[in-house]
């Protein structure tokens, strides 16, 4: 406790607070730009932290991380473009809300959810780090395979309407994920003799292409902006915030569930924030009284997605600080900083250098609180820009930012071409009802499933029946059952309805004849 207080005082300095404020603001804008991810934001900041004290450096990194993950929500809601992969699920309901003139409500909900998520993540980290960390290492290759399959069953709920088209999208995504050097084995696949394709199709490149370009094309085709100009706020911004606050805290089940999901997935190494928000969204929908309203502007979808991905920021520090396992890509950079300052992950971090570690953790809590003023002000600003700019200026500007962002990601023109190609194909796929979300989900999870499966098979090379290794321990059996259950709950209602209707309809039809 003393340590915690000491840590608190160590960050409650003008320098500390200004660092957090600047970090959150910078992170927010970087996160809002498609192509500039949290990982890159941290990488750019890295050299500057060398000149700072270890604590100040970590505070800056934590604040930028928190801001960037939250910033992704802005573009997700306002122009249907996830600024970071972790805000994919925010687009599902955020953008429809914005189209209905409720953009500010969506932004307010996202902000409040992010703040609460961030603080809950920090609380988990402070109180439960050691026991949660033990959970992190039980996820071996076989478990990861099942986690990925479980994730793939989300395709069912992401494919609004036709399950078949959703599955088709998922398969396209998995196929795209195989381009390049295979994660295990190192063979080059589908590169058609082009060395640049060895790098494969970067997730974010596909994300930008599949989400932004089709949206831009349809905006241009219809001669409209991203948002209706009549989007006047009912009763002003203040009341939108109050209303959302009442909605969120009035029925906190959704928020609590999303935060717990966010924390659990954050500690699974390799799954990370890209998956958390999708799973939380899916569960929010599954448990909702009115699942059909999801995808059409239900604010609960935004809340689930944004709270869970901000829990992930501090949540993924659990395996990082205790075991040195980076849960999400940006964590690798924070690990580098810790090592550089001679801080080895482990229990020492919480005892010997406890003041520093707790200061870092607490600063992330402050960073999430700072999201509220910074986010609401920044949100108003960006919202006004998007609404007020005529579409013939807005469209080319978004297109340009998109192309620059894609290029900057890996300094690659190839990526820009891939992005434009996927975008054009994505537009036509969307016209025939194949959405971007299942494709992206397939890309994310295809790789995880492949790695898990191949690694399991390799470890089982001495077993008489290698694939039994997939069911070799209790956790993988539980996960396999969850996969079966999830498939069943998706297919059964439709099947029952059909067979039920057949039973009812058939006699009816026979009567007149």
């Amino acid at each position: 406790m003393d340590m915690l207080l000491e840590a608190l005082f160590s960050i409650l300095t003008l320098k500390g607070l200004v660092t957090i404020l600047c970090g959150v603001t910078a992170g927010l804008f970087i996160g809002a730009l498609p192509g500039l991810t949290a990982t890159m934001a941290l990488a750019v900041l890295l050299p500057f932290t060398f000149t700072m004290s270890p604590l100040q450096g970590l505070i800056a990194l934590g604040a930028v991380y928190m801001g960037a993950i939250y910033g992704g929500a802005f573009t997700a809601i306002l122009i249907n473009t996830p600024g970071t992969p972790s805000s994919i699920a925010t687009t599902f309901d955020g953008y429809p809300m914005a189209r209905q003139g409720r953009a500010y409500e969506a932004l307010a909900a996202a902000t409040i959810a992010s703040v609460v998520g961030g603080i809950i993540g920090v609380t988990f980290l402070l109180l439960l780090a050691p026991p949660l960390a033990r959970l992190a290492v039980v996820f071996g290759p076989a478990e990861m395979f099942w986690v990925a399959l479980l994730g793939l069953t989300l395709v069912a709920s992401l494919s609004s309407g036709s399950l078949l088209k959703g599955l088709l999208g998922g398969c396209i995504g998995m196929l795209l994920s195989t381009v390049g050097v295979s994660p295990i084995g190192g063979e080059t696949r589908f590169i058609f003799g082009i060395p640049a394709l060895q790098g494969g199709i970067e997730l974010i490149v596909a994300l930008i292409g599949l989400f932004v370009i089709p949206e831009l094309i349809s905006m241009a085709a219809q001669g409209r902006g991203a948002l209706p100009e009549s989007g006047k706020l009912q009763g002003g911004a203040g009341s939108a915030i109050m209303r959302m606050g009442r909605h969120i805290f009035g029925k906190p089940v959704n928020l609590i569930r999303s935060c717990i999901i966010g924390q659990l997935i954050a500690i699974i190494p390799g799954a990370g924030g890209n998956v958390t928000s999708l799973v939380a969204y899916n569960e929010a929908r599954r448990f909702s009284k009115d699942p059909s309203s999801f995808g059409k502007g239900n604010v609960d979808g935004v809340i689930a997605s944004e709270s869970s991905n901000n829990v992930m920021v501090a949540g993924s520090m659990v395996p990082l600080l205790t075991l040195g396992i980076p849960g999400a890509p940006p964590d690798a950079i924070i690990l580098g900083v810790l090592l550089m300052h001679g801080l080895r992950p482990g229990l020492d971090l919480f005892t010997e250098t406890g003041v520093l570690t707790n200061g870092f953790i607490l600063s992330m809590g402050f960073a999430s609180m700072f999201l509220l003023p910074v986010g609401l002000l920044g949100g108003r600003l960006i919202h006004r820009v998007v609404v007020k700019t005529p579409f013939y200026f807005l469209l080319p500007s978004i297109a340009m930012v998109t192309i620059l962002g894609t290029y900057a990601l890996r300094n690659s023109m190839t990526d820009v071409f891939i992005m434009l190609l996927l975008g054009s194909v994505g537009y036509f796929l969307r016209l025939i009802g194949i959405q971007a979300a299942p494709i992206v989900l397939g890309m994310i999870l295809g790789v995880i499933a492949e790695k898990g499966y191949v690694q399991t098979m390799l470890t089982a090379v001495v077993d008489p029946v290698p694939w039994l290794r997939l069911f070799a321990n209790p956790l993988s059996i539980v996960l396999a059952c969850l996969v079966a259950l999830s498939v069943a709950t998706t297919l059964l209602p439709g099947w029952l309805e059909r067979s039920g209707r057949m039973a009812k309809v058939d006699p009816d039809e026979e009567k007149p004849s």
Partner: protein
Amino acid sequence: MTLATTRWVGSLTLMAALGMPGVAFAEYPEQPITYTIPFDPGGESDVTARFQEPHLEEILGVDVNVNHRPGGGGAVGWSEFQNNAEPTGYEMIGVNIPHIIAQPIMREDAGYETDNWKIVTFFHTTPNALIVPKDSQFETLDELVQYAKENPQAVTLGGSGTFSANHLGALRLEREADIDVTYIPFTGTGPLPAAIQGGHVSGIFNYSMLGVQMQDNARVLAVASEERVPALPDVPTFKELGYDIVGGAYRGVAVPKGTPDEIVNTLEEAFAETNERIAEKQEPLGFVMTDITDGEVDEVIQQLKTAYQPILEEAKANQ
């Protein structure tokens, strides 16, 4: 925002360099230098470049812009560099062994060649280390080898990548000790601590750095360096234990072929000086600082090619 600016400055530099073919090199360097890392930010190569950046800037008196061109385990950046970079001394790229040896052998379309540039220096190595969980039944390397002899393929060794430094290290151990183990590739060093602490593999073949990092919850059986690693003074080398395995990753920097010698020398000196300054920070992490230049570079590459070629060719034939 800073990011975009840096990149624009980078490309401006490039344009400036291209636009002035007749510039005299007497005063090199007089413009910012682009230092490309063909890997994602956050890895060992990137972290090292970030360490070097301020010192290089101070020594050379110009800006050094680190940027990333990841993909294909480095191959995307390297092929682009060999095809496009100008020999002006204002473009350099990080190079790694064994990647630049293994990829052109294993892939038909890697897009670059092992020798088609001028390697300025290899500034450090990270020797392979064999690490087992703390509660492992293997107390020493001999015990592991003995067990592997009696139970072919039953010992599973994780590592970073396929035909990478780690994989080649494991393959050399198999040859040297005449055993048959199962190598499980993971993507990068990140997932390895979990693999070892969760007991998903019997051990891992990774770099000395991870051995240092995991001192508390793992046991390092041996390191693949000529002499003991300063940060792990109690860990024997494979050589001490009777296995002739020296290897790991060598990291360095290359400029395009045809870059004037004076420029290469200037860069060599700058990197050597930088190395001295950052050694104090890097050595405790498990890096082994080196200053391999000129003829020695070819020697190292030749030596490792001889060691790896038969292993790689055999693996390729089996694919």
